[in-house]
C-alpha cells in the first residue's frame, strides 16, 4: 500500500512540475513491471501443498488428452510422479493434504499397483518414510522409464510451458528416462514399468549381464546316453548323481534293455527317436550346443559320498523313464488328486513323494502327518463297493490307520519336501528350524537351526543330500544333510524370501521374494546371478524347466511368468488364475507347465508354443505371444497346494478341501 501511495505521490509531483516525458517513461516502466508482479502469487502457490495437486492433475489431464500413439508412454510417467508427490507432501509435513492427494488419484493406479498403494497408504508421518523399506528405496532410487524421443520432448515442453516446477523437479529428480529414438514401443504393459521396486535397476542390469551356465550337468546319464548314440528315452538328471562306475552300470542296463526291445520290434525305437527329436527341436539345438560348451560344472558338493543308490532303485528309475508318457499339447497328462479332508483349516502345506506313494501334510498345530497312499489304495479297493463319496466325507478308518504323525516342531509348519528317493523328509516351521525326518524309522533325525525367523520354504536338491531354505529373515540358505550349519547364506532380497527352488543342474537356486523379484543365486559362490523383475506382487511359487533353460514363477495375484534364464527376460506372462498361485510344475520333458491356485483350479499351459512365440517375437517384434492355456481343471472347492509330475509324467496334485 505504501508503495502505491508513494508512486501516486511521485506521479502527481511529476505532473505538477510538468515532466510529462518522465511521467510516461515511469508509467511505461510500471506497465513492464506488471508481468513480474504476477510471479509473486505463483511463487507463493509453488510453496503451498496445493501445488502438487494442481500440477499433478494438470499433468494427468494433459497426458490423457495426448495423442494415442504417445499416450501410453506419457501415462507411465504419472505413477512415479504421483507417489513422489505424495511422499514429498508427507516429507514436508502436510499430512492432511498428502492424504487428500493420495485418495484423489488413487483409483488411477489401483489396477497396476494396488499392493504398493496399500503399503504407502500407511505412511502418515515423515518418520514412516524412513522406516518403511518400500518408501525408503523409492526415495533413494530413480525410476527407470523407457520413452521415445518425441514423447520425451513433448513432456519437457509441456512442463516448461506450464512452468509447474514442482512436477518438473520430481521428474528430474526421481525419474531416469531412457530415451530411445524412433517410434514409441508398442507394448503398453512393459515389465520395466510395472516393477517399480526398491532394487536398483542399474544393479539388476549389471547383475543380469553375468553369464549363467544354465546347461544340464555334463555327467548326467542322459548325456552319456546321447554320446553313446543310444536312442533311449530322455533320461532326466533325476537319475541322481552317480559315481562313474555306477553310471556305466546304468548305461549297460540301458543297452541291454534296448537290445531286448530291438529284438521285439525294431521299428519302434527309431520312431521314438524322431518323435523326441521333433519335440526337442525347438529348444534342443540350443540346449545341446550350450551344454556341450559348459565345462564340468563346479560342484558345490564337498568330498562327501552321496547316499549310494541301491540297484533296485536305479532299475526302478530307468524303468520309469522308459515308461514315461510323452506329453504335449495334444497329449495331456492324467492328474491324480490327493484331497485332504477334515483338515479344519489347519493344513499349511503338503508334499508328495516322487512316486506318489507318500503324501505329507504340514499343519498349523506344528504336527507333520505322513500318509502311505499305497496302503490307502489297497483298502480303498477292498471297500469299493460301498458308496465311496460318503466315505470320503466322513473319513475312513483306512485313512486314519495309515497316517503317521511326526511331532517335533514348535510352530506352524510352512513347508515340507521329500528327498528324491523318498527316504527322507524335511519340514520347515515358524519356530525357525528345519527338521529332517525318516519316514522309514518314523523318527526325527536332525534339527537344523540357523534361520532367525520363520522358515517359509525348504526344498531338496534334485540329487538329494543338499537342500535350500528360505526365510522371513530375508535370506536363503543352502544346507547339506550332514551339517547342522548352513553351507551358504544368500542375502540380498529386500523382503522375505518366500520360496526357493533348485535349478536342474544344482548349480543355482532361485528364490522368490515379497520384494516382487526373483533372484538366481550361484550355489558355489553364493552370489546373485540374476534378478528377474516383472511381478507385481509377492512371488509364491517357482519351477525350473527340466532342460534348465526356463523358470516359471507365480505370484499372489495369479500371474505366472516364464523367464529365460540366460537372457533374464520374461518370455510371456500367463494370465488366467485369479488368486494366489501356490504351486507350479514342469512336466518331465518340459513341454507342459501345470499351475495350481487358490482359485480351486489346476491349469495346464503349453510351454513349447510359448518358446516358439518368443522366437517370432524376437524376429518380427510383434506383440507378445501369450502362453497358451491348454486346459483348466476345476477342483471341488479344493485349492491346489502342491503339484508334481512323477517320473512317468503322471501329474500328482494335493489340496485341502475347504468348505465354503
Amino acid at each position: 500500500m505504501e508503495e502505491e501511495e508513494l508512486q501516486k505521490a511521485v506521479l502527481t509531483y511529476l505532473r505538477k512540475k510538468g515532466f510529462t516525458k518522465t511521467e510516461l517513461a515511469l508509467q511505461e516502466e510500471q506497465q513492464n513491471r506488471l508481468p513480474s508482479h504476477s510471479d509473486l502469487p505463483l511463487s507463493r502457490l509453488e510453496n503451498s501443498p496445493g501445488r502438487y495437486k494442481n500440477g499433478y492433475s494438470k499433468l494427468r489431464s494433459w497426458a490423457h488428452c495426448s495423442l494415442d500413439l504417445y499416450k501410453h508412454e506419457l501415462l507411465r510417467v504419472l505413477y512415479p510422479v504421483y507417489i513422489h508427490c505424495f511422499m514429498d507432501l508427507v516429507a514436508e509435513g502436510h499430512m492432511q493434504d498428502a492424504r487428500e492427494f493420495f485418495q484423489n488419484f488413487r483409483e488411477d493406479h489401483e489396477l497396476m499397483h494396488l499392493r504398493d498403494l496399500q503399503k504407502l497408504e500407511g505412511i502418515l508421518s515423515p518418520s514412516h518414510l524412513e522406516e518403511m523399506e518400500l518408501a525408503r528405496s523409492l526415495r533413494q532410487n530413480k525410476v527407470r522409464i523407457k520413452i521415445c524421443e518425441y514423447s520425451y520432448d513433448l513432456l519437457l515442453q509441456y512442463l516448461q510451458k506450464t512452468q509447474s516446477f514442482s512436477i518438473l523437479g520430481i521428474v528430474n529428480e526421481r525419474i531416469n528416462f531412457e530415451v530411445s529414438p524412433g517410434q514409441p514401443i508398442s507394448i503398453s504393459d512393459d515389465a520395466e514399468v510395472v516393477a517399480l521396486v526398491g532394487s536398483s535397476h542399474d544393479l539388476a542390469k549389471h547383475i543380469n549381464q553375468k553369464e549363467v551356465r544354465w546347461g544340464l550337468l555334463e555327467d548326467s546319464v542322459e548325456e552319456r546316453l546321447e554320446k553313446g548314440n543310444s536312442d533311449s528315452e530322455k533320461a532326466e538328471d533325476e537319475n541322481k548323481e552317480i559315481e562313474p562306475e555306477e553310471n556305466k552300470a546304468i548305461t549297460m542296463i540301458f543297452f541291454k534293455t534296448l537290445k531286448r526291445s530291438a529284438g521285439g520290434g525294431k521299428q519302434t525305437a527309431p520312431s521314438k527317436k524322431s518323435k523326441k527329436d521333433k519335440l526337442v527341436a525347438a529348444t534342443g539345438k540350443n540346449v545341446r550346443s550350450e551344454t556341450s560348451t559348459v565345462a564340468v560344472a563346479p560342484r558345490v558338493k564337498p568330498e562327501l559320498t552321496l547316499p549310494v543308490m541301491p540297484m533296485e532303485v536305479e532299475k526302478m528309475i530307468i524303468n520309469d523313464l522308459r515308461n514315461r508318457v510323452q506329453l504335449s499339447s495334444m497329449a495331456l497328462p492324467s492328474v491324480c488328486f490327493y484331497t485332504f479332508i477334515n483338515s479344519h483349516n489347519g493344513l499349511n502345506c503338503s508334499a508328495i513323494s516322487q512316486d506318489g506313494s507318500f503324501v505329507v501334510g504340514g499343519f498349523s498345530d506344528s504336527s507333520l502327518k505322513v500318509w502311505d497312499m499305497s496302503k490307502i489304495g489297497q483298502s480303498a479297493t477292498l471297500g469299493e463297493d460301498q458308496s465311496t463319496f460318503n466315505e470320503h466325507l466322513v473319513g475312513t478308518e483306512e485313512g486314519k490307520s495309515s497316517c503317521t504323525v511326526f511331532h517335533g516342531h514348535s510352530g506352524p509348519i510352512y513347508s515340507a519336501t521329500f528327498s528324491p528317493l523318498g527316504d527322507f523328509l524335511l519340514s520347515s516351521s515358524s519356530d525357525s528350524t528345519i527338521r529332517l525326518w525318516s519316514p522309514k524309522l518314523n523318527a526325527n533325525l536332525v534339527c537344523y537351526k540357523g534361520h532367525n525367523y520363520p522358515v517359509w520354504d525348504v526344498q531338496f536338491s534334485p540329487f538329494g543330500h543338499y537342500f535350500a531354505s528360505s526365510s522371513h529373515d530375508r535370506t536363503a540358505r543352502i544346507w547339506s544333510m550332514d551339517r547342522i550349519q548352513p553351507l551358504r547364506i544368500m542375502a540380498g532380497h529386500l523382503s522375505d524370501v518366500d520360496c526357493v527352488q533348485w535349478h536342474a543342474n544344482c548349480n543355482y537356486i532361485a528364490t522368490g521374494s515379497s520384494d516382487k523379484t526373483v533372484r538366481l543365486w550361484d550355489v558355489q559362490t553364493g552370489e546373485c546371478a540374476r534378478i528377474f523383475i516383472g511381478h507385481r506382487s509377492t512371488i509364491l511359487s517357482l519351477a525350473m524347466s527340466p532342460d534348465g533353460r526356463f523358470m516359471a514363477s507365480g505370484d499372489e495375484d495369479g500371474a505366472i511368468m516364464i523367464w529365460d534364464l540366460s537372457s533374464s527376460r520374461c518370455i510371456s506372462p500367463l494370465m488366467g488364475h485369479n488368486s494366489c498361485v501356490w504351486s507350479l510344475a514342469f512336466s518331465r520333458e518340459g513341454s507342459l507347465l501345470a499351475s495350481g491356485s487358490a482359485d480351486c483350479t489346476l491349469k495346464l499351459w503349453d510351454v513349447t508354443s510359448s518358446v516358439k512365440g518368443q522366437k517370432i517375437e524376437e524376429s518380427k517384434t510383434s506383440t507378445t505371444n501369450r502362453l497358451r492355456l491348454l486346459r483348466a481343471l476345476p477342483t471341488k472347492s479344493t485349492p491346489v497346494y502342491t503339484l508334481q509330475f512323477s517320473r512317468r509324467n503322471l501329474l500328482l496334485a494335493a489340496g485341502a478341501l475347504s468348505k465354503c
Partner: protein
Amino acid sequence: MSIVPKETIEVVAQSIGISNLSPEVSLALAPDVEYRLREIMQVEAIKCMRHSKRTVLTAEDVDSALSLRNVEPIYGFASTDPLRFKKAVGHKDLFYLDDRDLDFKEVIDSPLPKAPLETAVVAHWLAIEGVQPAIPENSPVEAIVSPSENKKSENTKEDGLLVDLKLPVKHVLSRELQLYFDKITELTVTRPESNLFKEALVSLAMDSGIHPLVPYFSYFIADEVARSLNDLPILFALMRVVRSLLQNPHIHIEPYLHQLMPSIITCVVAKRLGSRIADNHWELRDFSANLAASVCRRYGHVYHNLQSRLTKTLINAFLDPSKALTQHYGAIQGLAALGPSVIRLLVLPNLEPYLQLLEPEMQLEKQKNEMKRKEAWRVYGALQCATGKCLYERLKMMPTLLSPPKHGVWRINPRIAISRIKRKLSTNNSSQQPPFKKMAVDGPAGTIQAIATTTANLQGAEDGFSPQSSGAGTAQSSAPGQVSIDSIGSRREKGGSGAPKGSVVLAQAWKEDLDAGNLLSSLFQLFGEGILSFTQSPEKSFFL
C-alpha cells in the same frame, strides 16, 4: 486425519492408567498407531496367511504376525475358522464380533462336544489324459459352468471351451418302454416256460422301437446271469433273450457286446449251471456256444479282438486241467462253434495230451463216480464231434478237385444214404446232430459203396459212442492206420489213371489228401472208428 481417532488413543490411555494424556500426544500417536496396525495386518499377517496357503485372514495369522515382531499375541481369539463379524445397526462401516456371555454352569452341564474328525487323505482322478471324469469327487458341472457365465469377461468363451468334461448321459425313457422292459424282465425271471415268453422273444427279435432299452437289457442280463447261476431255466431264458436281441435287425447292439459277452461266456464255461443234477446244462452250453460264435461272426469285423479274446478265454478253460470237466466241455463246444479252422489250430495240437488226461476219467475202474464218468464221456463226445467236424471240412475240399469227373460215374441214389444216416442219427445223442445233418445235406452224392461203407461206419460210430453207456475202453488198433495209408496208395493210382486234369492239380490234390489222410489216421488212432463217421462217403471208400 488418521483412521484412528485421537479419542481412541485417549480411551486406550485411560484403560492402562494414564489419565492426563495431552491432546497433542494423542494426536501425534494416532497416525503412528495406524501405521503399526497396517504394518501388522497388511504386511506381516498377510504373509503368514499366504504361507498357510489360505486366502482368508484369521486371528491366528495376526498372532503369528505379532510374534514375528516380538509382540505378545492377543489372546482369546484362538480359532482356526475366520471370525464372523456383525454389522452394527445404524452405522455404515462399523462391525463387531458377536461375543455372547456364556453361563459357566451351562458350559459345565452341557455334554462334551464331539471330537473333530480326523484329517484324512483321499485320492481320485482329477483328469484322465486331460479330460475330467464326472465323478462326485470332481467339481460338479454347474459349478464349472456358472462362474464363467458370471464373469462375462472377454475370456468367458475361452474358459468355456477349455473346460472339457465328460457329462453323465441323461437317458429319457418313455413310459411305454419302461412298462415293456418291466414286463419282459418279469417274464424272463418268473415264467420262462410260458407261451407268453416265446411271444416276448419274437417281439424282442422284431420290434424296431426297443433300441433305447438295449443298455438296460444288457445290464439286466449281466446282472441276472451273475445272480441266478443256479437257476437253469432262467439262464436259458436269458440266453434266449440275448439271441433275440442279436437277431433284431433294428437295434445297434455293438456298444453293449462287452457287457453281454461275459454273460454268454459264463453260460458256456461256468463250472456249475443249475442246481439240480437233472438239469440239462449241456444244452445251455451248446446254445450259448453257438450264440457266442454267432456274435463273433457278426461283429468280428467291428471288434477285431473279439474272437481272439473269446478263443483265449475258451482255450484257457480247455487247457487248464484243474478246471472241471463241465468247463472243458463248454470250452470245446465254444471252440467248435467258432469253426473248423479254430479247432484245427487250437484243439488238434492239444488233443493227444488231453485225451490221455481224459482217459482215466472215463474208465470204470479208475473213476468210480458215475457223474464224473458221464461228464468225461460227454467231453469225449464233444471232442470227437469237434475234431470230426474239422476233419469233415478238410476232406470236403477234395471232392471239389476230384469229384467232377467221377460224379457221373458213381451217382446213384443219394437219398438212400441220407435216409439211412438220418435213421441212424436218431439213435445218437442230440449233441452230435449238427455235423451229421450238415454232412447229410452238404455231402455229395453217395455211391453204392458209400452206402455200404456208411452203414459200416455208422455202426462204427455207434461203437465209438457205445462206450458212453457201456464204459468200455476205446478200440485202439494199428490196422486202421495201415488201411488209411493203403487207401492213399490206392487213391494215388486212381488219380493217376482216372483224372483227366493237369498234373499240377493232381499234385496239389495229393498233398491235400496226404494231409487229410494223416489227420484222419491220427484221429483214428485217438478216437477209433468213431471218427470215420465224419468222413464223406466217397472219400471213405478211398481210405478204407
